[in-house]
């Protein structure tokens, strides 16, 4: 009996606040609780005693604007009986006079009302936007926001505009404070770099199952095809963004419950589930039209030929000390590369514009959702097609997802999730070359930019033209490079109530498998990698699976007013496998190509691999809430990995966190404008076992064959690949965090602020071996890195009125990483900082302006080789009158601030959302500087960009970019440090989405209302504009490339979409 009372008290607290009005509800004093509990207890007792009497109850369910809520579920507590409100919000139900009615509707706080013989019960439901009770998913459980002791950022999927969003990680850009998501490729499904507080790749946990964070990709054929990889895609490619309910980002000690691999934080993804209620069918579809952002303009034929002549002469004058380069008179040497008549007769082929194109996206999504108390289901199907904005680039995806929860017996509940996806990617090539090749194996866009504009596509015989060893960009479009990906994921969760509402057991089995098949084919007609007339191809298959098996006991119990205890203990086993097989081949009929490899008459090289790894864990978690004022939570995890040797396999990962609910203190009672104020602190340890290579010594076949007699006698050497490294063990990250959560002015302003301090200790990595040991490096737990910073988020309801609302959410984050200790034997350069060196340090000599034609502005300390006109003037930072390593500047290239701002407006049935995000305070190399080379023009080895007009020369003495003397100087400055030439400020503010929508609901749908519940029409512009000082390019997409032959990135795009959403 005592037990029952306590249990009910807990129920009371958890389930009644919705019926209360105003924010004071959570501060319900103990008298209220006791009296209400008593009433309820009496009522329940009376129920069980069985004075049963059936009556008809009816009423109307309204929202706070007194609009009827259609489709709200009304059910009798503890029974299967129930109904749904009609178009006027009305319901009617036969119930026992002593029954309790439960009202629920998505987005509203559920309510319970005792019938007590009433025949008319009208209800006003409140929208469930209150900060206090927002449920935050944590590892192995969830908690209401007011009781959260750690730093977890939540992204509600419905708040994110998902038009033209192909991947879940695109939803995170600028949305969660402390999480930095940066686009690394704009290709369809393109990669997003996600880091939590500056760490590496976080782990992704989907509905409790850890999933691989990277995309599974097969190789492109290695040295047989020399095809650039061209692939930079996000992981979780099989997860449809529309199936996501919420994303929680575990930033601090909250990640410790995922001990292993959680060193870089955890991204928890919760997918949509079935809900009790009538069948609800939703169709959401959008069509988008995509255009490229401006891309680097290349020279047309006339300009190219004129600049080639200019710089050929300039080079001659420089080499012979003529004109401004030494004073000798120009002797009219160096004939023009192109004559005036050739120049006037030349036509231009705009290769770049033949590779770039407009793209489009279409997305269709159907979801079916509903359920009874015994069975809830969610089914969705998605088709997504994106035509990339580069030739031969496209992505197509089908996904199917089902999530069914069924109450098998009174004490057992089974939840089953199945997900299937099929992705087809056409990997259009852009830049980058593989296998150390230069421009002879460029991507098509890089080739298009290199190729001379003076050349036509075809020569007089109809064959593709040739230019040096650069492949003809249009000829390259005949090559095939496609990847077929398939994924299958299932997840079973069985919950068994051992003691109802107090103790339950859960078993979870998750299995995920993916395959990737890549077909690369170069036909005989394409000149590529200096080979013409030989077909080459590669067919590669990759497979991986991972399974999770977990069992746990979950305990939840209130001990009166004093304490509420929530605890979990469990254990798990995690097994990953991967394997692959592939064949590269040459000389096959172009029509047969990869469909029948036995037809290949050239070299056929097979390859295969296989790996597996396993982890085993035991874990426990508890949280206790004392007096509704103090919360203490702790986790403990013991993880073992097969990677380490016997005594080093296991490690403990503890965490503890505290929260002080200041707003529940007595002294806060009269401060009514504060709805919530909470201070929290956490400390936790997470780990990492992933070194990427084996720690066990072994011999392996060495793929560097030794061959004799015209390569007809072959030996496959066997090589000692490593020694045993039994001392290597877990890397540990100690995470500390202090945070404040608040909500004031009737929840009009709410938010949180966190300061963190993470130490990555015993870092797993490689140190330089002793000078003469057999292996240059050896694995070790060595270095120590510190990351620190802060993040904040603020949500405001700026205007709340019946017809017009305006809400804003601002996220801010900043982090920095510094080395506290390097690996033993680390090689420092002369100029490198040895104490507290920034992790992202960039060293260079500062420059200011160029040496002018008469050298009048050249300082006396200018190094000898830079003393020619057109060379950058170095800055003597320490003012000692000479250039030494002391003048090298260290720049930390971490952005000083990331921010994201979402503004949402509604006016009657209109809604408008404007979302922007930004990175401030960073420098990046701009690779337009790789496309203005005067020496390439002088030698006519490449076309260059229009920015050549900024290059200094005799005829352009006011040019701002270094001239030929700089390119020919090839000088090493002291310490071999570089200069800041080419680096630019790369801050940006991007408006990511502007979305305008109009919703037809039951009121204004007119005659359609009979068939459709609501219709929403919307228009969206993605990436409408960008504010940045960075020249020409988008600074967000990686721009560091200055490698041989590469120098071209997938262009950033802008999408215009129209969408339609029906709910039936």
């Amino acid at each position: 009996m005592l037990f029952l009372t306590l249990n009910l008290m807990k129920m009371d607290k958890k389930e009644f606040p919705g019926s209360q009005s105003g924010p004071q509800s959570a501060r319900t004093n103990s008298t209220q609780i006791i009296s209400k509990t008593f009433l309820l207890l009496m009522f329940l007792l009376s129920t069980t005693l069985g004075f049963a009497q059936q009556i008809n109850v009816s009423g109307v369910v309204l929202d706070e604007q007194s609009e009827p809520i259609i489709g709200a579920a009304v059910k009798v507590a503890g029974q299967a009986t129930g109904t749904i409100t009609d178009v006027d919000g009305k319901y009617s139900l036969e119930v026992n006079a002593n029954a309790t009615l439960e009202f629920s509707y998505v987005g509203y706080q559920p309510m319970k009302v005792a019938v007590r013989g009433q025949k008319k019960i009208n209800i006003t439901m409140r929208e469930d936007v209150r900060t206090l009770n927002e449920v935050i998913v944590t590892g192995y459980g969830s908690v209401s926001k007011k009781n959260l002791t750690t730093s977890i950022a939540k992204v509600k999927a419905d708040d994110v505009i998902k038009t033209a969003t192909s991947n879940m990680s695109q939803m995170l850009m600028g949305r969660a404070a402390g999480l930095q998501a940066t686009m690394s490729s704009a290709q369809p499904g393109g990669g997003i770099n996600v880091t939590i507080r500056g760490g590496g790749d976080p782990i992704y946990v989907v509905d409790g199952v850890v999933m691989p964070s990277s995309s599974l990709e097969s190789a492109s054929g290695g040295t047989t095809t020399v095809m650039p990889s061209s692939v930079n895609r996000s992981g979780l490619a099989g997860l449809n963004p529309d199936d996501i309910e919420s994303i929680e980002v575990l930033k601090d000690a909250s990640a410790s419950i995922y001990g292993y691999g959680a060193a870089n934080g955890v991204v928890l993804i919760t997918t949509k589930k079935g809900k009790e209620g009538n069948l609800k069918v939703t169709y959401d579809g959008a069509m988008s039209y995509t255009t490229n952002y401006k891309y680097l303009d290349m020279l047309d034929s006339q300009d190219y030929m004129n600049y080639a002549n200019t710089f050929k002469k300039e080079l001659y004058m420089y080499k012979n000390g003529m004109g401004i380069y030494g004073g000798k008179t120009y002797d009219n040497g160096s004939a023009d590369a192109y004559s005036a008549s050739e120049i006037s007769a030349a036509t231009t082929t705009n290769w770049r514009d033949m590779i770039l194109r407009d793209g489009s996206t279409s997305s269709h999504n159907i979801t079916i959702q509903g359920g009874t108390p015994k069975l809830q289901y969610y089914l969705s199907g998605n088709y997504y097609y994106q035509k990339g904005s580069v030739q031969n680039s496209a992505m197509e995806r089908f996904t199917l997802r089902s999530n069914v929860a069924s109450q098998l017996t009174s004490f057992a509940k089974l939840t089953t999730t199945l997900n299937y996806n099929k992705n087809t990617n056409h990997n259009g090539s852009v830049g980058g070359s593989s296998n150390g090749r230069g421009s002879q194996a460029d991507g098509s866009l890089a080739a298009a930019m290199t190729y001379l504009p003076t050349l036509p596509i075809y020569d007089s015989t109809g064959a593709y033209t040739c230019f040096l060893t650069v492949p003809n960009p249009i000829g390259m479009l005949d090559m095939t490079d496609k990847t077929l990906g398939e994924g299958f994921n299932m997840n079973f969760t069985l919950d068994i109530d051992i003691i109802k509402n107090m103790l339950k057991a859960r078993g979870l089995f998750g299995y995920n498998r993916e395959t990737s098949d890549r077909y690369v084919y170069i036909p005989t007609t394409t000149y590529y990698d200096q080979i013409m007339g030989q077909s080459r191809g590669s067919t590669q298959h990759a497979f991986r699976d991972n399974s999770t098996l977990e069992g746990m006991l979950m305990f939840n119990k209130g001990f009166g007013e004093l304490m509420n205890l929530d605890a979990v203990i469990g254990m798990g086993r995690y097994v990953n496998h991967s394997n692959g097989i592939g064949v590269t081949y040459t000389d096959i009929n172009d029509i047969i190509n990869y469909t029948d490899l036995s037809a290949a008459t050239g070299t056929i090289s097979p390859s295969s691999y296989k790996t597996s790894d396993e982890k085993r864990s035991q874990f426990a978690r508890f949280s206790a809430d004392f007096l509704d004022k103090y919360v203490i939570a702790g986790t403990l995890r013991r993880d073992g990995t097969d990677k380490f040797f016997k005594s080093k396999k296991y490690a403990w990962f503890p965490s503890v966190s505290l929260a002080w609910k200041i707003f529940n203190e007595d002294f806060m009672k009269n401060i009514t404008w504060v709805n919530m104020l909470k201070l929290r602190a956490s400390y936790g340890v997470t780990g990492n076992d992933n070194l990427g290579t084996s720690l066990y010594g072994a011999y392996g076949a060495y793929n560097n064959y030794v061959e004799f007699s015209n390569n007809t006698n072959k030996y496959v050497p066997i090589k000692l690949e490593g020694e045993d490294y039994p001392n290597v063990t877990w890397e540990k990250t100690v995470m500390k965090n202090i945070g404040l959560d608040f909500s004031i002015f009737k929840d009009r302003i709410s938010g949180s602020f966190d300061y963190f301090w993470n130490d990555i200790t015993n870092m797993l990595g490689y140190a330089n071996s002793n000078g003469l040991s057999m292996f240059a490096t050896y694995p070790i737990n060595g270095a120590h890195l510190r990351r620190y910073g802060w993040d904040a988020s603020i949500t405001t309801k700026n205007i709340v009125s019946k017809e017009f609302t305006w809400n804003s959410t601002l996220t801010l984050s900043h982090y920095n990483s510094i080395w506290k200790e390097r690996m033993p034997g680390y090689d420092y350069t002369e100029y490198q900082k040895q104490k507290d060196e920034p992790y992202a340090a960039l060293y260079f000599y500062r420059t200011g302006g160029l040496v002018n034609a008469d050298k009048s502005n050249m300082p006396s300390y200018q190094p000898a080789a830079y003393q020619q006109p057109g060379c950058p003037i170095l800055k003597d930072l320490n003012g000692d009158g000479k250039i030494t390593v002391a003048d090298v500047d260290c720049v930390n290239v971490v952005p000083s601030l990331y921010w994201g701002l979402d503004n949402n407006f509604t006016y009657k049935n209109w809604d408008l959302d404007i979302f922007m995000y930004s990175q401030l305070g960073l420098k990046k190399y701009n690779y337009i500087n790789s496309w203005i080379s005067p020496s390439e023009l002088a030698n006519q080895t490449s076309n260059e960009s229009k920015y050549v007009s900024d290059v200094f020369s005799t005829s352009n003495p006011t040019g701002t970019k270094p001239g030929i003397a700089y390119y020919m100087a090839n000088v090493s400055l002291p310490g071999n440090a570089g200069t800041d030439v080419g680096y630019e400020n790369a801050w940006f503010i991007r408006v990511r989405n502007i979305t305008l929508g109009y919703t037809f609901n039951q009121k204004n749908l007119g005659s359609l209302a009979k068939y459709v519940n609501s219709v929403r029409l919307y228009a969206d512009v993605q990436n409408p504009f960008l504010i940045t000082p960075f020249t020409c390019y988008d600074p967000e997409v990686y721009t560091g490339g200055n490698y041989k032959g590469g120098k071209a990135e997938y262009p950033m795009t802008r999408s215009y979409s129209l969408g339609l959403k029906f709910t039936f």
Partner: protein
Amino acid sequence: MKRNIIFAALAVAGLMLSSCENDFNAKIYGSLSTTNFPSSESDYENYMMDCYVPYCIKWTYTLSSQTHNFYVPEGSIVRLLDGTSDYCAPWVLGGSWGDSWKKLTSGSFEDMKYYTRAYSGYPEDFGKTRDVTVMTKIIGVLENAPESKLSAAKKAQFLGEARLCRGLMMYYLMQYFGPVPVIVDPAKVGDEESEKNLTRPTLDAYTQYITDDFEFAANNVPEKQSQKGRYTADYARFCLMRHYLNEGYHMNGYYQKAADLFSKFTGGYKLYTDGTNPYADQFKIAHKFNCEVIMAVSCSTGATGTGTQGNFNPWSWYFVPKASKVDPNGNPTPFYYQGGGWGQCFNIDPQYYKTFEDGDLRRETILTSYYNTQNKLVGPSDIGNLWDGYIVNKYPIETATSFQGTDFPLARWADVLLLYAEALTRAGNSVNATAIDCVNQVRARAGLAKLTSDKTSSTSNFLDAILAERGHELMYEGCRKVDLIRFGKYYTTMKAYGRTPSSEYFPIPNYAIDQATAAGSTLDQYFYTSNYDGPTK
């Protein structure tokens, strides 16, 4: 209710037990355990084959860490010992290739101090000192192989091959840096103190390491190998002869030992003399392993530098400028099958070109003009403006494949004749008729008359003549800088060509100096021979 709890507890306990420590070791596929390898003759042979890897022609290899193979252009003996010598003009017009090409060809080696240990495309070779340890380990394993698994004869052969490879590695490192720290005793492999010790051994000690390996190889490697390109005793003798000559100035009796080796060759070699220009013809695909070849890297046309393919020959891409396949009349140029190269990294300095006597057939392997991509003739007057030097066509483009199948010469009888002439001269400190005859044999094959009497009138005149002959005969075979140093003329000769070598040998990179200091040993960054003709640091 109680029963439920018990069930749950049992279930959890069961799961816990089943998922604990048992059978929880790393699963590694595709490799062989250290406990059961090597266990057969073919295991030992395949293990020994590691030692050949640096001498295959691939882009790079990794025994200890990633580095260039010895005969591949980007990091080869040609780049480091020919490109840095008198006959290669500095490659100034390199465009985007970066400054290391220009600097090395100008004799400016100072930047090599900044080379890092992580592979970044530079010819960083000091890291190969670890490869010596790898080979020493293999030699130790071979020495300890039980007779039951490896016959004595095969053991001797494999050990001979492994030691020849190790000797060559130490030999080449010496030509780059002078004596470098190495581990040659298998018992010291894995020993912390020995592996830490980065002090340079004495010149005599290091010389002896190389001599020991080459002498062992000359006595144990088979006289004949059925597989072309696999090392023979004669190749060991050739290596030994060269080594004796190089080090004779500080090792007693080495000159005589070099001279004595001449009669030990068993292969019956003679100069190749067929055709109108036998000198040029001997390098062509049709005449692989001709009567003059003691050893060469056997290449084929199908290979492209990939590890899983055999040896390839990419030299034409580094010798030929941006040239046209056809002349303005549509007739094929010497580059018809390939077109222009990537960059003319290696060339013949026009000033050096003039040192050839008229009628020298060897000069015909140098092209002094070409048609550029605009099909305009580029000739000697464009030197310094459109190109830096003439085209080396010694390894001509013969096939329409990405890379050529031409073998890379390692040891030729012409070289042995010149080495022998030099050894006789140095050993006796006089000019004798046999020596003169050896040189004249080589000259005759090149279409030249016998040496005039002024060239043989004194030891020093004759040695000068031998040095000049070696330059013409062996250009771009990877030994010019070694020769110039042996003759004590590296600095003076380079100065005469307008280049100033920044040091005699290459500086050891800073990373190694710092590591040595941290380990408590002293590693001198520069090494100079006692008879160096230039300034020292």
